[in-house]
């Protein structure tokens, strides 16, 4: 048995297929054991990946592109999500109903340069706003600080992901969604590896890929599988209603069914990244996506 060390960008829904693979014995069937480490964001996880401290990271497709572009050979081993994972929430009594209404307001992002940052910049531009002049993007942190900042009124809207969206919306009449990016095709969670690792561990890579893709297929086939994973992944959430809503949201097209990045999501990815950094060297789909397991 070989142990695979995976780094997760956050304790987020993207890790659910991995949990399923573990729960259903798919890793064991491949002769793998896995250990998951949580990082404070995608960037440190990607850095740990590049340094060889972990075998693969569960993070946004952005990091595969960054690593590839920096010559470190980033590859998406399995695409875990087909759509974006964030939604922009505001207090229920806020007048804004769309991104465009937030002109002149303060919007909370998790941290500068993160997925939430680039996403908002891209969406704001699409809505005809200048992200540097028409709004203030404030690095606030994750769900806790975001919610505190909303409550204190120091930001007008903030970026939340699963399960924080569901938990926050569960408070009756307090918060609402201003803009839901979860419908946007985007490789929000991928199993990313490096060329170096791939070259050194071709067998493990194949096993890992097979197990996770199998898990994705099982989830698609049976929602109960996902529910069990949700319960295990978020032990702090005990309310069955909440568990249901998380499971339903995740099951509703968020997770990838095949483990292969869709061309649409790759297109948004490249557009967003180019918008954030005009000097970015373009990367092709085939440069970062490894074909599905045979």
């Amino acid at each position, binding site marked *: 048995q070989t142990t695979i060390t995976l780094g997760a960008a956050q304790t987020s829904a993207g890790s659910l297929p991995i949990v399923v693979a573990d729960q259903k014995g798919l890793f064991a069937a491949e002769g793998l054991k896995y*250990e998951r480490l949580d990082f404070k964001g995608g960037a440190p996880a990607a850095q740990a990946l590049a340094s060889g401290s972990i075998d693969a990271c569960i993070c946004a497709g952005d990091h595969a592109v960054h690593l590839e572009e920096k010559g470190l050979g980033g590859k998406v081993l399995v695409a875990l999500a087909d759509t974006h994972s964030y939604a922009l929430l505001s207090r229920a009594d806020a007048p804004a109903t769309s991104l465009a209404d937030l002109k002149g307001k303060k919007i909370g992002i998790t941290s500068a340069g993160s997925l939430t940052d680039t996403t908002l910049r891209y969406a704001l531009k699409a809505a005809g706003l200048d992200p540097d002049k028409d709004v203030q993007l404030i690095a606030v942190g994750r769900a806790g600080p975001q919610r505190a900042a909303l409550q204190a009124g120091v930001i007008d809207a903030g970026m939340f992901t699963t399960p924080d969206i569901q938990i926050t919306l569960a408070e009756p009449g307090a918060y609402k969604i201003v803009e839901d990016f979860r419908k946007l095709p985007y490789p929000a969670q991928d199993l990313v590896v490096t060329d170096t690792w791939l070259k050194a561990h071709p067998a493990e890579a194949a096993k890992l890929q097979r197990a996770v893709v199998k898990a994705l297929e099982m989830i698609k086939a049976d929602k109960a599988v996902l529910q069990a994973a949700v319960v295990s992944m978020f032990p702090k959430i005990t309310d069955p209603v909440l568990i249901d809503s998380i499971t339903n949201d995740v099951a509703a097209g968020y997770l990838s069914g095949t483990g292969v990045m869709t061309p649409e999501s790759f297109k948004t990815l490249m557009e967003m990244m180019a918008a954030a950094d005009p000097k970015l060297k373009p990367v092709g789909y085939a440069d970062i996506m490894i074909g599905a397991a045979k």
Partner: protein
Amino acid sequence: MTDTASTSPGYVASARRRLVSISPTALAQLGFIAALLLLWELGARTLFNPFWSSRPTLIAVRLWELAASGDLWVHTLTTLQEAGAGLLLAALVGIPIGIALARAPKVARTVDPVMMGLYGLPRVALAPLFILWFGIGLFSKVMMAFTMVVFIFILNVMEGIRTIDPDHLDLMRTMRAGRFYVVWRVLLPAVVPWILASFRIGVGLALIGAVVGELIGSNRGLGWYVESSGGQLDTTGVFSGLIVLMVLAMLANQLIGYVERKVVTWR
């Protein structure tokens, strides 16, 4: 002011008083803590939103569950190990460096800016380098705690050595005492108060360092528990972790006080 009648041991009763005084102190401490907890409980129930502050009773229940499941010990031991090793390593490395730099002022002046610059670096931002150099195991967290604390020892010991009575050093020089004799018999005993202060300061920073290390990448430890609870908006979880961290800091401080009383008998 009259509290510090440290110089009034002129009556027989004081030896007796010491033995009894242990329990009033502990009582006062516990009473104070209890009062704060009560305030918190009441405040959370009435004044402010318990979503942000949780409540002592909820936390107690959570801690009980964690203890029962065994997770509490795993996380606590992990963090304790990281912070403790970092703190001790910092003392072992920092004290000699502090002494050496204080005794070689030219070298100290040369290295000083770089050292202070390094010290001022936010450790969180150095995460990639820590991962690169020290991996993501125990060692990288120990190093995180270490790099927070080692400068405390260096800076405090350096300043401490400057306050040493020059007559003691002159005495040693006239008796041609060797380098090690001076270090062991004069410098170290003289900077004991500075070392103790460093330990007190260091405890908190080592814990913070360990927690920051756990944020960078881990799957256990109190920092990880706090962060993962925060990620699920579980305030009770956050505060449970924080309370355990506080208890660790308190206990470490008590230990330092105990060692101080054992070591500094001459004051």
